[in-house]
């Protein structure tokens, strides 16, 4: 009942439709460009960018007195860019390392932004209301014209990314090689960084400066689990971002006093966790299963080979030996009987007595084949 009502509202309710559209745009753009941030190991740079954007928003408001999203986004982008520039030049010209430079810029800019925000809120007029929503985001406050602004800027970012696809791939994989081919890699670096800044500031109103970096990192990290192709990764990352954005924003607008940023981040976290565990090739769950299976197989082979090495000291290779001896050979590990029973099923060993086992002809051949394979691998 409630779900169908929600879906109905999604299409016909102005607020919900605006919220869903805006969140989808934010998820698509940050998912796509976040892929590059993750692949270039710049995940944390996104965090610094989004925090550094806060004073930009405050200053843009102080200068213009306007709360139009285009103006605030512009302020955020400029401040985010200056923050990034600071990080880069601190690393280049001092002995301070990248992580410390990030921490420094992030906290200084964010602190400055909070101070400005407090000053703004103490002003007597009421125009400032709502600026503090940029901390944790407030999807419900999105207006149609905000969404249009986001859509246009997002489309520009995605189109630019697609036009320079080959160049950005080169930049992300092997920038030095790209430079030897004659591409201006520093310029491409600046362009891509600008697009990532753009992706971040687009989401600030909805997700907030504190958690926006999650929307850059998490969808891409989840998508990487499912594919080994850059194109598929970017596409999947966008889809994951969009899903998390829409679901999170809808939840927070339909449940009272639920901040949007944290809700969206919780949604994308679920996707990340599922991907970490259940993605086909890289998923931890499948790895664990494979390892277990391998270990079992190796144990069975070890028992077979143990039996063979014992038999070697006899004229007749089918000479039986007791389980106790096999257990000693297997360095005291359990499961010898279980392995023997498995081998019996395959016809490789036979039980001669209640407690004694011998190789069959097929078993002897199997041991020799295993030994040969092992040599081949070395």
């Amino acid at each position, binding site marked *: 009942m409630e779900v169908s009502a929600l879906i109905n509202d999604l299409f016909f309710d102005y607020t919900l439709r605006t919220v869903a559209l805006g969140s989808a745009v934010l998820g698509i753009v940050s998912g796509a460009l976040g892929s590059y941030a993750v*692949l270039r*190991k710049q995940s944390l740079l996104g965090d610094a960018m989004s925090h550094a954007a806060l004073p930009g928003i405050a200053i843009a408001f102080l200068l213009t007195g306007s709360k139009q999203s285009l103006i605030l986004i512009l302020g955020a982008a400029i401040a985010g860019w200056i923050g990034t520039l600071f990080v880069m030049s601190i690393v280049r010209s001092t002995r301070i390392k990248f992580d410390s430079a990030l921490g420094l810029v992030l906290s200084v800019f964010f602190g400055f932004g909070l101070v400005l925000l407090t000053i703004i809120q103490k002003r007597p007029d009421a125009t400032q209301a709502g600026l503090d929503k940029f901390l944790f985001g407030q999807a419900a406050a999105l207006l149609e014209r905000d969404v249009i602004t986001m859509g246009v800027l997002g489309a520009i970012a995605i189109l630019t990314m697609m*036009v*320079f*696809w*080959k*160049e950005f*791939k*080169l930049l*992300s*994989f*092997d920038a*030095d*090689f*790209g*430079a*030897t*081919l*004659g*591409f201006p890699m520093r310029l491409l670096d600046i362009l891509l960084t600008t697009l990532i800044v753009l992706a971040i500031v687009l989401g600030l109103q909805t997700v907030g400066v504190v958690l926006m970096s999650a929307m850059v990192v998490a969808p891409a990290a989840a998508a*990487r689990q499912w*594919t*080994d*192709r*850059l194109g*598929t*990764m970017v596409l999947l990352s966008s889809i994951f971002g969009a899903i998390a954005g829409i679901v999170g924003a809808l939840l927070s607008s339909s449940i009272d006093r639920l901040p949007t940023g944290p809700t969206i981040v919780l949604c994308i976290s679920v996707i990340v966790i599922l991907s970490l565990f259940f993605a086909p090739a890289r998923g931890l769950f499948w790895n664990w299963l494979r390892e277990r299976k391998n270990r079992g197989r190796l144990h069975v082979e070890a028992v077979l080979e143990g039996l063979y090495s014992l038999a070697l000291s006899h004229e007749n290779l089918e000479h039986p030996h007791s389980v106790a001896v096999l257990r000693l050979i297997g360095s005291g590990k359990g499961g010898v009987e279980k392995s023997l029973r498995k081998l019996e099923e395959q016809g490789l060993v036979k039980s001669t007595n209640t407690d004694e086992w011998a190789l069959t002809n097929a078993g002897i051949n199997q041991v020799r084949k295993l030994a040969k394979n092992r040599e081949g691998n070395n």
Partner: protein
Amino acid sequence: MSINAIEVEDLTVAYKEKPVLWDIDLTVPEGVLMAIVGPNGAGKTTLIKAILNLVNTAAGQVKIYGKSSSDQRRLVGYVPQRGSVDWDFPTSVKDVVMMGRYGALGWIKRPGKKEQDLAIQALDKVGMSQFADRQISQLSGGQQQRVFLARALVQDAQIYLMDEPFQGVDATTERAIVSLLQELRASGKTVVVVHHDLQTVPEYFDWTTLLNVRLIASGPVKEVFTEDNLRLTYGGRVSFLKQNNGNGISDLDQKTG
């Protein structure tokens, strides 16, 4: 051999006041297979990067076939150190090799059928064509090195600069790479290789440059690869080195390598 493929004049490179390369004058004639040898920190990689215009130089200039290297990029192919990239990057072997065509393709244009064919041909030359669609994270060290070589081959350059192509590859791959390098030289290309194993220099190369921040010597292996020059290059640590004693040389290599 009258034409010079590479001319380096008064080249000096410094990282924060510490000189890495000091006043290098080097001429590489066309058609040689040259090893750059020297101890760790001698500036071998930096020399290659300076020739490629990848590092800022404090002084000096590099000419490729008589012109500045930024005008001659099409003529130079580059094989960086294998460890310089992230092999977990989501891409296939063929895609990496096709990157060698990006320069010829120019801006924005995407690689197509022609580039794919060239990539497969190059992979064939390094014995990797059956790995074309393999994800690069599944390659062994030797296979990664071959992929990088194939990427340089599709550049169809006149000069190849390679940074330690033998690092961490097995004996089979090493032999395959050597015969490929000699093939390149036989077809008139100039090949410059940063090399670590002193023992194999006379066998693999016909030209060598001994480097330790300054240029110690450069020329045909037979004239330049002498005990005296090696001692100058590696310092006092080679007191036990005897030219004909293979073990001595390989000891030295382990100490410095």
